[in-house]
Every structure is written in structure tokens, then in C-alpha cells.
């Protein structure tokens, strides 16, 4: 596992490094590299071996450029679809649901948290990333797109589809969701099911 830190405040950067090192010792987590930088370009050029699991700690606001962090996260996702992304940020930039949708971020750690809470959060993220190292992330999604809608749901969550009283409207029932959408024809759904 490689660990990357993107943080432009040197003190915060060292603080995070220190915490990660001591936690790794405590839990015997072995990582190959711990790479800290203040420059997004440096970070992006360092991402090479995607076969290995990677853990990223990203600050959202870099040099007062708003959404630099999100843009970086998107770039990272392009190169490394399965890496674990954690945002370390101040509360005012927090937008958990947005970032979960955008880059499937694992968590958000607020810099303002008390030291113990902060360490605990980092610890949780480290442990999750470490467990992902061995279990391959299943990308087995049912993705549906037509003129009228577009969504993705893991195959394993799907219970069943049913028709609604309105012609061409389909209801999808999954583990925790119900999704009503306009399908056009049901044939299309069957087509989408087959692997490309």
C-alpha cells in the first residue's frame, strides 16, 4: 500500500505524517511509501502502480484555490478507480454527500476535531484501507443509461424489477432503495444486463 498526503500547510502535513507513522506501528500496517506534498501535480505524477491499493489524504483547499482538492480527487479517480480517498479539511468546505457521489470518498476528517478524535478518525481510515488491500473491490455494477435516465447500482444489491401502472415506467427494488424510472422498453434493460 502507498499512502499519499496532499496538504499545503507544512505543520498540518507533518502532524498527519506523524500520526500515520505511529498508527502504522501500532497496528503493524505495512506501507511501501508515505508521500507528502503541497503540489497537486507532484501527487498526480507519483501515482503509478495502481495494482497496489493506495490511500489518499487530501486537503480540499490548496493555496486558496477553491475545489482544487475535488479536481485533484477526480484526476486521481481517473488513474486509480479503487483507491481510498479521505478528505482532511476544515468544516466550511465540507460537502460529504457531493464528494461521495463525485469520487466515492471514504470519509471526511475535520481539522478542527479534538486531537483524540482526529487520531481516531485517521485510524479508522487506515484500517479500512488496509483491509481493502487484500479484498478486491468488486466493480460489478448494473449501469443503466437511456435517453431518459442514467444510474448505477451494484448487482448484488438488486432484488427485482417491476412494471408500474404507467406504461414504460419501471420500478427497481434494491436492498435499501426504490427507484422509479422511465425505461422506454424493457428489452433495453435485458440488453444492458449482458456483459459487453
Amino acid at each position, binding site marked *: 500500500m502507498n499512502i499519499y498526503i496532499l496538504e499545503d500547510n507544512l505543520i498540518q502535513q507533518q502532524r498527519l505524517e506523524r500520526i500515520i507513522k505511529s498508527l502504522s506501528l501500532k497496528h503493524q500496517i505495512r506501507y511501501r511509501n508515505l508521500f507528502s506534498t503541497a503540489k497537486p501535480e507532484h501527487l498526480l505524477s507519483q501515482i503509478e502502480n495502481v495494482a497496489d491499493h493506495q490511500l489518499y489524504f487530501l486537503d480540499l483547499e490548496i493555496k486558496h484555490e477553491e475545489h482544487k482538492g475535488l479536481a485533484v480527487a477526480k484526476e486521481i479517480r481517473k488513474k486509480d478507480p479503487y483507491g481510498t480517498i479521505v478528505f482532511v479539511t476544515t468544516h466550511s468546505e*465540507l460537502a460529504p454527500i*457531493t464528494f461521495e457521489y463525485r469520487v466515492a470518498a471514504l470519509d471526511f476528517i475535520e481539522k478542527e476535531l479534538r486531537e483524540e478524535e482526529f487520531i481516531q478518525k485517521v485510524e479508522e481510515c487506515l484500517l479500512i484501507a488496509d483491509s481493502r488491500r487484500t479484498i478486491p473491490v468488486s466493480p460489478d455494477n448494473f449501469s443503466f443509461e437511456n435517453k*431518459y*435516465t442514467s444510474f448505477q447500482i451494484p448487482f448484488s444489491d438488486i432484488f427485482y424489477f417491476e412494471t408500474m401502472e*404507467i406504461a*414504460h415506467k419501471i420500478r427497481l427494488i434494491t436492498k435499501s432503495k426504490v427507484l*422509479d424510472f422511465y425505461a422506454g422498453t424493457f428489452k433495453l434493460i435485458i440488453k444492458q444486463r449482458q456483459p459487453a
Partner: protein
Amino acid sequence: MINLIMAIQILSFFFIFRSISRYHFTIKEITVWLVVFLMIGFISTYFIGVWGAITLFFCFVGISYFKNHRTFTALGVFYGAYALVMNSFIGYLAADPITSVVEFIFKQSTANIDYLPYLFTAIAPPVINEIGLRLVRHYVPQLNKEILQESSKVILFPVIVLFIIIIISVYPILTIGNETGDFNSFHRALLVGMWLLFIIALLYMQFQYTHIHKREIEKAKSEQLVQLKDYAAQLEKIYDEFRGFRHDYANILLTLEDGIYREDWEQVKQVYEQTVKPTGQLMRKNEYSFVKLRNLHVSEVKSILAAKIIMAQQMKIDVALEIEEPIHLIQMELISFTRILSVLLDNAIEAAAKTEKAKISIVLLEDPTIQRIKIENSSGEQVSLRRLGERGYSSKGKGRGLGLYNVQQMLKENNFASLETEAQSNLFSQTLILRKTGERK
């Protein structure tokens, strides 16, 4: 041959009805209904002649009844009456021109073409009606069915009554005409009068609709104004808090500076613990996410969001707002959209208010191809996902639950909108997914 023409006439009622009502029919439904229509049409015509069409009228009301989830609506009756009058109207208007055109084209022909004018006259109404409706729909903005339903007393009832008068007075004359082949001058005048009445009825409908629509918009505009005022007041309040903070901040810096120069670390520590640290907590309040509304550039939606957020905050609900990218356009007709949004927000607020740690998240996401509006609330009770949106089903108890039902009714008309509902142990969320079509202004 006469049977074929009659069949076409009966079927054309159905096609006019279909194109005015825009109900969705599957191929199976169409086949079944056409067969039913032919049977009813032939049987009733055999017994009561032209009045057989009246039985078809009741069939239309019946179809509407089922298509509207087993409720009678004025709109459904209107569609039926429209189909009846329109068919006779166009048939009457088209009969003479078609006859002369056919006679002109087949002047040289020696074949028996007596039936041709009748055939074309029978086919004409659904075709002309379809073309006319498409033209109207292309140039005139679509009528909002919600408004029509709500103001049906003013808009639809007079029109339906007029249609029925027209049917009752026109049909006997047409019967006489069919038998004798010609009309006398009184009947002719009455027919023309009735057709004029028909056109007046349609114009009246359009006029009333525009009027009510305008009033609706004005009402919405003035509501919006009030909401935007509240929004401005709330922003000022937040600004005041910040101003107070800025004032304190200067004092804090001075005290710290003093402590540092005198190397009095006890004083520095004390000031930091007592005054600097608490400001960090102040910054963590979600109330400030309110400011993210600035990314939303659709004032109709902005005002309603502001109003609901303020309302929720007054109810001591923690509201987190995420609008991270600028949004300039909502991919849906705004009247329907604001109504849907209000219902979803009201439901979320009501459900969250009953929980211990009341929280609502409102998220607007803009993707290249879709727009997502997610409203999440803390929830205490288990909601049945399957029954949600059924008419009258509500987790709030009996007699409620019309809100979400109405949302689904409005979404029914919109193929580009999907609704996702998610229930986890303590969270409940609804996401409206709007697919961008690129066709909207």
C-alpha cells in the same frame, strides 16, 4: 363497405381521444379497447343510431377513470366530450371539400367510387385532429394539467356543459341529414351556430387558462419576493455574527500579542483556551452552509429553498446544504419542480423534527448528463418503501400522504425525471434525478 366506414368512424373517436388525453396505452390495451369500441359501437348504433356515439362517450369517461387511478376527473370527462364533438365537427367540415376533391381526381375513372368520399371523410377527423393538436402544442406552451384540474370549476365545467349542449343539438340534425341527404336552412344555421359555439368554447378555455396561469405566476412571484426578503434577512444575521466575531478577533489578537511579548505563557494559554478555541466551534455550525445558496442561480428555486431552510432551522433542525457547483437551470418545468421540491422538503422537515438529533441534508448536484436533487433526513420510524406514494398511505397516519402521491402524479407526466427513495436505519432520503435533454430553454 358501409360497415368498414362505420368501423373507421368508431375507431377515429378513440384516436382523437388518445391524442387529446395523451394517456399512455400499451399495444395490448389499444387492441382490447378497439375491439370493445367496435362491439359497443356496432351494437348501440344498431339500436339507437347516431346516438350510439353517446355510449362511446361513457367508455371514454370509463377509460379516464382507470387511467387516473380510479378517480373521476373533470379532465377525463372533458377528453371524452372533446373526442365526440371534434369528430363530428371535423367530419362535417371536411365532408364537402373531400367529396369535391375526390370527384375531381377521379373524374375520368369509371370504377365505382361512390364510397370513396365517405371513406376519406371517416378517416379525416383523427388525422386532421392529430395534425392540429401537434401544431397547437408546438406553438402554444403546453397546458399544465395540474392547473387545469385545480381550476376545473372555472375552466372545464363550462366547456363540458357547452360540449354536451352541442352534442345534444347537433346529433339529431346530423341524423336527419343522414336520412334525407340534405339539411334545411334552419338546421344548417343551427349547425353553424353550434360549430361557432364549439370554437368559442375552446377559445374560452384557452383564455381562462392563460388568465389563471398568469394569476398563478403572479402569486408565486409575490411569494418569492417574501421568501427572498427572508433570505436577505438571514444573510444579514449571519453577517452580523461574523462582524461580532471580527470585533472580538481584534481584541483577542491584542491580548495574545501582549502575552507573547511579556512571555506570559499562562495568559496566552488562558486566552487561547477560553476565547480562541470556542470560535472554532462557531465555525463548525452548519447554519453557514446556507451561504451556499449563492451557487444556485434559479431564483424561484432559491427562494423556496431559503424559506424551507429557515423554517427548518427555526424548528431546531440542523440543515446542511451542499451546492458545490453553480446551477443556472433546472431541467424541469419550474411550476411542477417547485411543487415537488416543496412536498419533499416538507416531508423531510416533518419527519426530521420528530427525531432526537434532527438533521436534514439538501444536495444539488450538477453532472454533465444529469441533475440530482437529494433530500435526506434523520428518521425515527420504519417507512415501507413499497407503499410509499400510494394514495393516502402515509407514515404520518390516516388521511395524510397525498403529498408524495401528488409528486408521483406530476412525475408521471415527465419521462426525464426519476425518483430514488432510500431508507436506512436512521436515514431516509429521496433523490430526484433529472436527465438533461438539451431541448429545454
